[in-house]
């Protein structure tokens, strides 16, 4: 069984939910990323989404745009990102890593070369924001050959027939976008999310993570009550942005721990 399937099975069987933090690879500099990934795990992360920096992050709000810009100042490319995962794997063989990014850097490397390199580096899944199912056949077949999970977005605007089409391709989990907007937006309607998820589940074989705009323990707890996984990105990236270099890892770890605690209290105790 894959690392992703394992972590969902193990947490859900304990009535816990999966905590998925996101950071951008190479932010604020390439030297930080692996230690920040370990800090996320130390704080209670179950799975890490690692952003591939891109010059034109169309679906991201200003916080993650700036993270991409900081990484690109250091010339961080896809090969460097895969190198970071490889280094993380040297001391962490169990925490799944999902790469998240935009199509063009992967197109440039080539689907087959990317899949091979990603699998060899210890990547578990890939979510390409601007590669909807209609355009993803080539990448999906390359990924599946290497036992990498194609992860898809679902949105409040996704009609049922598309949920079914996505379900046929999705492995690992799906990422439900909590709102109409960009990452880090501040208008999540948690009750609307809760109302949508049961309908989605009818058409899905994989667990559902919810992200976009979850910025504190209360939000994480609200999502944990209805979804299988809680995805937090912009809030963590903001913590990196606002922390001095020597406190970055500890600040990130304690922030993740507070999210973990809030989620566990909402599901295990509650």
């Amino acid at each position, binding site marked *: 069984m894959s690392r992703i399937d394992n972590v969902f099975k193990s947490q859900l069987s304990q009535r816990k939910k999966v905590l998925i933090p996101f950071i951008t690879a190479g932010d604020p500099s390439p030297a930080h990323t692996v230690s920040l990934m370990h800090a996320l795990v130390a704080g209670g992360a179950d799975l890490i989404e690692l952003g591939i*920096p*891109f*010059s*034109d*992050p*169309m*679906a991201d*709000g*200003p916080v993650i*745009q700036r993270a991409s*810009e900081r990484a*690109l100042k250091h*010339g961080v*490319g*896809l*090969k460097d990102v895969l190198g970071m995962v490889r280094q993380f794997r040297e001391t962490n063989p169990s925490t799944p890593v999902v790469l998240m990014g*935009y*199509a*063009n*850097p*992967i*197109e*440039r*490397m080539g689907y087959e070369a990317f899949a091979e390199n990603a699998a060899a580096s210890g990547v578990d899944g890939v979510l390409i*924001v*601007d*590669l*909807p199912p*209609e*355009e993803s056949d080539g990448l999906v077949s390359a990924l599946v050959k290497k036992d990498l999970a194609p992860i*898809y*977005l*679902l*949105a*409040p*605007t*996704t*009609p049922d027939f*598309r949920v079914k089409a996505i379900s046929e391709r999705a492995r690992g989990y799906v990422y439900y*976008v909590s709102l*109409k*907007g*960009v990452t880090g*937006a501040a208008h999540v309607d948690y009750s609307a999310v809760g109302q949508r998820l049961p309908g989605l589940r009818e058409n899905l074989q994989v667990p559902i993570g919810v992200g976009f705009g979850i910025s504190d323990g209360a939000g994480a707890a609200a999502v944990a009550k209805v979804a299988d996984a809680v995805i937090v990105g912009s809030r963590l990236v903001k913590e990196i942005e606002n922390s001095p270099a020597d406190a970055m890892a500890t600040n990130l770890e304690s922030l993740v721990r507070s999210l973990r605690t809030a989620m566990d209290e909402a599901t295990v105790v509650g």
Partner: protein
Amino acid sequence: MSQPDYYSVPDARGHFGTYGGIYVAETLMSALDELRERYAFFKNDAEFVREFEYELKHFVGRPNPVYHAARWSEQIGGAQIFLKREDLNHTGAHKITNALGQALLAKRMGKKRVIAETGAGQHGVATATVAARYGMECVVYMGEEDVQRQAPNVFRMKLLGATVVPVSSGSKTLKDALNEAMRDWVTNVDNTFYILGTAAGPHPYPMMVRDFLSVIGREAKAQMRELTGHLPDYVVACVGGGSNAIGMFHDFLKDESVKLVGVEAGGLGLESGKHAAPLSAGIPGVLHGARSYLMQDENGQIIETHSISAGLDYPGVGPEHSWLKDMGRAQYTAVTDDEAMDAFHDLCRFEGIIPALESSHALAYAKKLAPTLAKDQRILVNLSGRGDKDINTVARIDGITL
């Protein structure tokens, strides 16, 4: 060998061969589906077509003429140069024709708010104009650098009641304005229509923009026949995103005797790397919702472009141009900033027409091409816009303080 069917593209999912498609985040997929369905319905709706044509005639001022630039042709020595006078449209460029078509669609879809991206400001002005005409709220995204170099157009948009939002991310130019417009659309997708200004972006935009602008080529073809009794030997248009060029080329695709040439912004020269010529010097990739030729580095990051002309300063290009390039039906080349400036001044002095810096790229290529041809051959240049908006830029380059 039979002629390829140039009118069979795009397919149902927006593909021009391997180009085009729909590469956007899931949140926008249903909005693009809705747009595709509504456009497919209204483009064949008699009342929609009638209103579009009425507005083109009475509000935009179409048809604009084809004009024989006899004095400039004589000066250059060689083929006869003809100009399709898109600069004489209301708001001074071809852009209004597309903005109008999309606004009529927005109106029928019940969208009260329209957004747009703009580079030189021509599409922003066109969108602000049609928004005022139909009583819609209008927000225009414009790169901070372009806000500086196209100040008159910024003021025009404000006069027309639009909100102009300067974009400070990335390279602060057209591509970043497009990113920001997409971010707005994804946030306000229920009440907002995105009036995209060029024949790029996700399906159905490249097709829809082409269809609205293909009136340029239909008019020009009839006008050339009337004026000269013949089709042109060459049709030349500048290519940034490629909207004026595809509008001009489309009706000529079936006329194989007519050579089609798209002219990109060569900036400081292709060898300098400081240009905006993806078809001449880029490789295919995915940006802004479609696959097409792109300016990108070895990591797949989009490269910052350079052009004297804000409207051509874009690292991508409409997917149909990528397809036409690979099919060999159109050729693509580039001219430098200096060559464009030289042609700009020529047209001012020999013909009494101040051309847009974008269109000056097409003129510059015509100036190079004409002496290689016989005097009875004909080059049709799409004069896509007027240059009043560029006088500050030109003055600065020429060292003049206004």
